[in-house]
């Protein structure tokens, strides 16, 4: 979104934030490891195979799943395809512009994709219809509707919630031909990966940074964990650094905070 920041204002705001954080306080009175209110609503787009609208504070994200059939990749003939794609809609922010996905949107989609993929949330082998020939292709398209910080987590929750509630046509193989059946089956979901993003502002890591905090942050780190507390994806962002100690702290925070969020996602997608 290439925020055109006002440098003077930014510097003053940041100084204030660092000062507050040194006292353990955030501008919106959250504790450092507290995320903003999270709402999840599924089944909002009937034409999609699965969908979810997620709000995280004022950040709002809509994810929709469409399942089609296609050919597998030659090197994984027994696996279906999963494609995550994100667009930061121009209505989401004064800094977003129409056009092909920005560097930010591509990173966003790829980081969320890795969390889903590496956690083995969707069993891709169950998406195979005829080995080497026909597989399910699961597209998850994400519309960022309103930007107020931490797109990574909001997008991740929307994608995971949409996938957990997605149903797809059933196919049978009869005489080597693919035949559509009347009923639908759930997309084969095994796990619930949860991404937790933290910003470093000065020396403090805060969970779920708002836009205001992002404008002042030095570094961003996203860590995705699975139901068993394993780390399955991570991405450090922004043009600054993180100490090794902070990385390990972030892992622990992600596991702890992720647990509660996972419960909320599971509850919302029953």
């Amino acid at each position, binding site marked *: 979104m290439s925020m055109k920041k006002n440098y003077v204002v930014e510097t003053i705001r940041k100084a204030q934030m660092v000062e507050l954080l040194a006292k353990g306080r955030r501008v919106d009175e959250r504790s450092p490891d507290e995320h903003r209110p999270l709402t999840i609503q599924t089944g909002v787009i009937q034409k999609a195979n699965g969908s979810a609208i997620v709000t995280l504070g004022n950040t709002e994200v809509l994810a929709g799943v469409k399942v089609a059939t296609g050919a597998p990749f030659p090197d994984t003939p027994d696996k279906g395809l999963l494609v995550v794609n994100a667009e930061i809609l121009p209505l989401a922010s004064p800094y977003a512009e*129409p056009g*092909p996905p920005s560097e930010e949107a591509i990173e966003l989609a790829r980081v969320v994709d890795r969390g889903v993929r590496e956690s083995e949330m969707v069993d891709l082998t169950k998406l195979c219809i005829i080995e080497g020939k026909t597989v399910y292709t699961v*597209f998850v*398209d994400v519309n960022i509707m*309103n930007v107020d910080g931490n797109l990574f987590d909001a997008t991740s929750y929307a994608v995971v919630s949409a996938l957990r509630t997605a149903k797809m046509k059933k196919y049978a193989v009869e005489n080597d031909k693919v035949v559509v059946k009347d009923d639908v089956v759930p997309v084969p979901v095994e796990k619930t990966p949860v991404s937790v993003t933290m910003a470093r502002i000065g020396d403090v890591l805060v969970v779920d940074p708002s836009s205001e905090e992002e404008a002042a942050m030095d570094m961003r780190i996203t860590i995705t964990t699975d139901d068993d507390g394993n780390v399955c994806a991570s991405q450090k962002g922004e043009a600054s650094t993180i100490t090794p100690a902070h990385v390990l702290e972030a892992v622990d925070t992600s596991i702890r905070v992720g647990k509660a969020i996972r419960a909320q996602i599971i509850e919302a997608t029953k």
Partner: protein
Amino acid sequence: MGLLKNADGSAYINWGKNKIMAAVYGPKEVHPKHQVLPDRALLRTRYHMAPFSVDERKNPAPSRREIEISKVIREALVPAVTVEDYPRTAIEVWVEVLQSDGGSRVAGITAASLALADAGINMRDLVVGCSCGIIDSQVVADLDDTEDKEGSGDMPVAIMPNLNQVTLLQVDGMYSRADFQKAFELAIAKGKEVYGMQREALMKRFFEGQEAGMVEEESA
């Protein structure tokens, strides 16, 4: 209206199976500079469909259809905006179709018009739309997707109801002279009904101080 926090104005519409979000940014500086209009605002519009909004996943890149609809939507809205009040600025209108059904362009115009009002942009009139068609030789308003495909015509119309002016007219199909008139007049009449609902939504927004509302319009 007012659902999106960052936009200067926004409106969400639920019309038949259409689910459309419209948002307005502006008046704001024009980039690039050479597009500045010295005597009025530049209105930008984009009509865009989410990949999951239709039966078969749509490629996210704008199709020729979306480019054409973006143009006619712009031409349908400009007459209602007092663009001369905002010289040298840009007003951006983003119409995002989250789920698409028959008549998505007129629903989009209706939402966009509300979003412009929500953004406090000066307007001569609202713009409301309705789409008519012919099914089994009968003129019918507000076709949904299935009817659209089975029917033999689609006639989206947008009007400024108080000024009794048509700002959008597109016709597809096969209409005798008499049927054309019937469908066209029905579209206008239905559009005026929609206007009643729009006005209500606006009044709620401005007079009852309601922060966020939703326009729910059932198909006829």
